[in-house]
């Protein structure tokens, strides 16, 4: 069953459904993530924070959201 209102993307290596036409800011809001604490790559390209609002995600986009964790 294909729902035209959703698009399936790859988020941190796993399938994830977003509302069609969502931009990166909207994705972060949905995930309850503050944008100043993460960095995002879409299809292998690092996206500057100011461009989040204009980057509309498409079906099959590969999105990586990373943050800092404890490490040596």
């Amino acid at each position: 069953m294909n729902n035209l209102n959703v698009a399936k993307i790859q988020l941190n290596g796993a399938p994830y459904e977003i509302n069609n036409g969502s931009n990166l800011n909207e994705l972060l809001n949905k995930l309850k993530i503050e944008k100043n604490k993460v960095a995002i790559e879409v299809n292998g390209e690092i996206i500057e924070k100011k461009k989040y609002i204009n980057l509309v995600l498409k079906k099959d986009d590969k999105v990586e959201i990373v943050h800092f964790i404890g490490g040596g």
Partner: protein
Amino acid sequence: MEDLFTIANKNYKSRLIVGTGKYKNFEETANAVNASGADIVTVAVRRVNILDKGQPLLMDYLDPKSITYLPNTAGCYSSEEALRTLRLAREMGGWRLVKLEVLGDKKTLYPNMIETIKSTEILVKEGFEVMAYCTDDPILSKKIEDAGACAIMPLGSPIGSGLGIQNKINIKLIKEQSSVPVIVDAGVGTASDATIAMELGCDGVLINTAIAEAKNPVMMAESMKYAVIAGRKAFRAVRMKKRGYANPSSPQDNLI
């Protein structure tokens, strides 16, 4: 005379850099970091856990505005992976000072020096200040400096081994020939190891496992703080010459 610890034109009070891995929780991490007196902490870059919304973050416990975050590339086995990681780290908060670590082998976690040198050159061109984890080989560590690293970080012994400084002669050689800071990274097991690194003339020490895996990490963190200070002062004070035989400490004249 002030004894400044300068990396990439920035001064730091403490010569101890600590890692933030392997702790029970963020509270223990923060307590240990505070007890260590470190101004710089290393951090890793990993995927956000999407399923666990609203989980606490390291940044909630250690404020990057009051302590310097040093993003590392731990877990990277190629130049490409390391570059990707550090570019993401820079995007996160504008960090230009980074710790490059390109590993060569899972069993020893020894650095792959060919990839490390290659990565250093690229990162320096992109405007990064690179502190590079390297072998304790004087020739290769010189190559790292030539590639533009702002600090050289030779291992004392393998990461997480706690075996101390295995090759003091090499560490001393590296320090003598380097014009950028030399920081012993990896291998410190207990306070005396940190002191030895500093007595050899190193500019600093990076410690993670020796603190995190101590029975009392917070107390060990404090111990490392004093160990680094003690070793640095001993180095600056210049130790006595060694003698083959005894030499009395009390005057030999006017004995009763």
